[in-house]
């Protein structure tokens, strides 16, 4: 079946095209088309996954374009990583398709929403099947398109418009890095194929300096897509999109594409110590940086967005510390618990019609399904033992301890503390305490609860693929048996547990039991509080530096264009005009003048002839 893996992305593509053509006629029934298409994708992907579990990598290529003697190809490559991602993406996408039927019900552009979801799913599935950098880049930008369209789904809102534009442009900045890196690699190896490039690293065709340069450039692409510092600013704004979109694109799948890309190119990164250190540092810094901002956000989706940025930082840290398996493991568990958290948040928003957590409270009873499911997600992301997040985070901490710089390890531990704190701040603010004027708040329909339930189960169960107790199935399979469990000291797991409970306890003190004042931080260090609320002023810094520089240059060029270039053109026209009037003065009808002109012309020609011998040049 692996040779037919290329069919998997075609179902959502079909759904996209059908809905674009007939969606307006089908209206609310459009959902069934999308759901059916992604279900087929999921089933097909599962068959491929099962095949790959017992088989080996399959690859096929077709011509895309020939340039001289070089043939650029597109194709499919069913590696363990790809098969895994394929199933993961198809699964989350299908769940979100089901959930959206309830969430988006009644929207005027319901079918358009499903069409865009289909386009995104197609692109994401195409990305994780890519056997070469070129195809990866193509789908890489197409997932960006899906994200752009869905962030801007509520097109009439100015915020949504700005957010969509920002998301596209910020990720494009990263993409240009990716493009440059990929082209540099091409001219060193004369191929975009992963395998050819890895071979070139192995046999030394690719110099270490070039390898480092190229992979860091490609990593800039990953920074943009995965919302890593300093290109992260688009991701919180992307929350302007409908919540199911945030769950699918800006939590579970697309933003993880950066992690996937580094993982897919892992042999290349491993060849360069500098690149690995860069990845680890960016990841570690982002993890703590985003977590601190998450502490003070008041919009439920933005808290989750910063948490996503922070968790993606963990994955990058894992990759940089050399633990490919830990990164993919955390990518998987994160996909489940973060999708769950977003869908649950969507259910909350659906019920109370606000995103401001300070206006929420006491929803535990009103949302009897959503609340416990959200709690599962929160426990999982906080790294409470027995939940999936515990195992994957533990794996990352272990990797950071054994291979990474100590500082990054401690940053990761601190970020873990902050994570459990802000997650439970969110939990207590939303679900505990007194109910506030949301008397009509009630649980959503079964079509919304059911996907959350599935994700809830997976947010626990997915951790047991890779545990110190039941063996490392995932790691062994992903690495084709080459996996060795890092002999990390046992105290790391204990420390992680303590840290996670400490964060929960602190959040309970402040927001649950309210034994500690909420303005504890802002009262003591108001400027720190302000700094965090303003997201470290990153957006303002960009506006004052890059944006104003570009606009200044652009204004300067506009003057150059209008005065200098135009002036030169006028000058040229003036010279022609002057020559014309001078020439016409020679044709004044007097025979003497004609004679003079003729003689003068002849004289000039004779001089030229004498000087050049008739042939100039």
């Amino acid at each position, binding site marked *: 079946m692996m040779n037919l893996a290329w069919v998997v992305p075609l179902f959502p593509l079909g759904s996209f095209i059908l809905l674009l053509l007939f969606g307006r006629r089908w209206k609310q029934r459009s959902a069934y088309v999308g759901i059916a298409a992604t279900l087929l994708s999921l089933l097909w992907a599962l068959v491929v996954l099962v095949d790959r579990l017992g088989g080996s990598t399959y690859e096929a290529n077709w011509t895309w374009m020939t340039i001289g003697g070089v043939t650029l190809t597109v194709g499919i490559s069913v590696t363990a990583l790809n098969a895994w991602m394929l199933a993961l993406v198809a699964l989350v996408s299908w769940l979100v398709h089901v959930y959206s039927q309830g969430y988006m019900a009644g929207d005027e552009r319901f079918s358009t929403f499903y069409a865009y979801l289909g386009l995104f799913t197609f692109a994401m599935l195409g990305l994780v099947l890519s056997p070469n950098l070129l195809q990866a880049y193509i789908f890489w930008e197409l997932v960006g398109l899906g994200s752009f369209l869905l962030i801007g789904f509520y097109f009439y809102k100015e915020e949504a418009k700005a957010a969509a534009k920002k998301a596209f442009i910020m990720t494009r900045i990263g993409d240009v890095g990716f493009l*440059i890196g990929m082209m540099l690699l091409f001219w060193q190896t004369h191929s975009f194929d992963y395998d050819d490039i890895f071979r070139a690293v192995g046999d030394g065709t690719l110099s270490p300096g070039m390898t480092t340069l190229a992979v860091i450039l490609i990593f800039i692409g990953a920074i943009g897509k995965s919302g890593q510092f300093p290109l992260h600013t688009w991701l919180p704004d992307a929350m302007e999109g409908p919540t199911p979109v945030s769950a699918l694109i800006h939590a579970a799948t697309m933003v993880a594409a950066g992690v996937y890309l580094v993982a897919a190119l892992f042999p290349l990164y491993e060849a360069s110590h500098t690149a690995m250190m860069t990845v680890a540092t960016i990841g570690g810094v982002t993890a703590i940086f985003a977590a601190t901002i998450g502490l003070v956000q008041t919009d439920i989706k933005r808290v989750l967005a910063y948490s996503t940025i922070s968790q993606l930082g963990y994955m990058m840290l894992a990759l940089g510390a050399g633990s490919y398996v830990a990164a993919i493991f955390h990518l998987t568990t994160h996909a489940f618990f973060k999708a769950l958290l977003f869908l649950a948040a969507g259910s909350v928003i659906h019920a109370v019609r606000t995103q401001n957590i300070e206006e929420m409270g006491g929803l535990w009873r009103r949302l009897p399904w959503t609340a416990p499911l959200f709690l599962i997600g929160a426990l999982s992301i906080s790294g409470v033992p027995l939940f999936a997040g515990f195992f994957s985070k533990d794996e990352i901490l272990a990797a950071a301890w054994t291979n990474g710089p100590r500082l990054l390890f401690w940053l990761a531990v601190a970020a873990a503390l902050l994570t459990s704190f802000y997650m439970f701040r969110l939990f207590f603010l939303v679900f505990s305490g007194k109910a506030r004027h949301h008397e009509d708040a009630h649980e959503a329909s079964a079509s919304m609860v059911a996907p959350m339930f599935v994700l809830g189960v997976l947010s626990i169960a997915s951790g047991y693929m890779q545990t110190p107790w039941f063996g490392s199935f995932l790691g062994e399979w992903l690495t084709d048996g080459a996996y060795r469990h890092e002999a990390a000291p046992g105290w790391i797991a204990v420390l992680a547990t303590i840290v996670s409970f400490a964060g929960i306890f602190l959040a309970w003190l402040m927001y649950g039991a309210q034994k500690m004042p909420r303005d504890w931080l802002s009262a003591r260090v108001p400027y720190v509080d302000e700094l965090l609320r303003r997201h470290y002023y990153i957006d303002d810094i960009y506006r004052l530096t890059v944006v104003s520089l570009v606009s200044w240059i652009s204004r300067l060029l506009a003057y150059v264009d209008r005065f200098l270039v135009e002036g030169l053109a006028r000058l040229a*026209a003036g010279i022609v005009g002057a020559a014309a009037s001078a020439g016409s003065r020679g044709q004044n009808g007097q025979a003497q003048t004609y004679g003079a002109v003729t003689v003068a012309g002849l004289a000039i020609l004779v001089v030229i002839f004498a000087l050049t011998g008739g042939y100039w040049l």
Partner: protein
Amino acid sequence: MMFLSLLVFSPLLGIVLLMFVRKTDERMIQWLGTAATVPPLILALFAFVQSGRGFRLERLDEARDWVRLTDLPFLTDAAYVIRYELGIDGLSLVFIVLTAVLATLAALASMLVKTEKKGYFLWLLALEIGMLGVFSAANFVWFFLFLEVTLVAMFLLVGKWGGLERERAAYSYLLYNGLGSALLLVVIAVLLARTGTANFALLHEMLHNPAAEGQLIAPLTAEGRRWLLGGLLLAFAVKLPAVPFHRWLIRVHVEAPPPVVMLHAGVLLKIGAYGMIRFGIGLFPDEFRSFAGVLALFGVINVLYGALLALRQRELKRVLAYSSVSHMGVVLIGLGALNEAGIQGAVLQSIAHGLISSLSFLLVGVLAHRMGTTDINRLGGLTKAMPLFSGYLLTAALALLGLPGLAGFVGEFTSFLGLFQTKPALAAVGALGLIFAAVYSLKAVLDITFGRPRDRREAVVGSREPQASAASLGEPQGGVVDLQGKEAVPAFILVALIVAVGVYPQLLAAPLTAVVKTMMNGLGG
């Protein structure tokens, strides 16, 4: 066989028939004018399909005696004989197909043109003959003649059917392109004087084959060749246009009627690229090497200059005009790379930009007709009233910024890939243009289609752009109606072509492979 003559001159039938139609019978004129563009389209597509199946295009060559300039006894029979010669290869073919397709679509889009329709279509068809002829000529003199046909037709179409400042734009066009043509004429004259022939193949033979070089009437030194090439490149740089010869393009884009801009941006600019490849690389490959660096540098300047200026524009046509400057820079980048990827990229970028700019200006025409303005400050939230139109406009913007899966990406990717082999640092600087392209396209199009709908009569207070008034073509004529069936057809065809080239570029790359290989042989690469 007269296949090529038939292809080039078949619009003439339409011209003749149009002469007999009454001026007031607009429906008949529209119908006939559109129908007249169909025969060349069919013939071009037929040739394209046949060559894809292995038909050798050289078999289409035509030659006929035309003018004998001298009868000096010591010259060979062939010298100073200018013949009527047509002939095409894969390179010409893709441009001919582009021309034929866009001509039909522009004719369809011309239904929004209401004044003096008869004269308009006469000149439009003349323009098509000129363009088809330029790409089919196998002889420098005929190339030049066809080029001048386009110049005259275009001058009249802009000057008579354009916007408020149409005459200024028309003269600007004439001035720049006239000077370019004059330079070209000098080069052609020198070549003819020295070699006694204007035929491309013969010229090539005489300039490169040491044995044939003896037949030169007078020798051409290496320095002389460099001068000739410099003249050629300069002449075509005006057509392309390269910064700083781009001011006429902005005026024409803004003032010409949108269907004419479809052909202007879609085909006429590409004559610059075609000329540089055919004559620059084709006739002077060795000398071209020494110009490659300059071309690449100018390419990067074009890309960044155009994109940065497009950022500031608040009038959709001007955004698109500067984006054309930027995109033509990519063509120069490809030529400056001077390797297989670069040359192929330059051609692909030409075709891709032809399709994309046509789509953009088709939509500009509809927008101007519906809203009475293309001033971005006065538009907003159109998706609500015109969802289909907005979808197409967004597609055009995405194609413009080089989204993979659409044609623009293929051209940019291939050109940049070329330059990254030869001058990676310069190419990296040029790649920044891709970011700016995303900014200006999205900014312009989202401001029109997204956000809050605006009252189109809302005055633009304090607008310092002098061209804001030129943008308004009077009161809206159609009311806010979405894209109609007849307008949607050309838009749909263009999108389909843009997607087709973007998804499977081999479609275009296949006919080019042999040509690019020949050029590379000439370059000794």
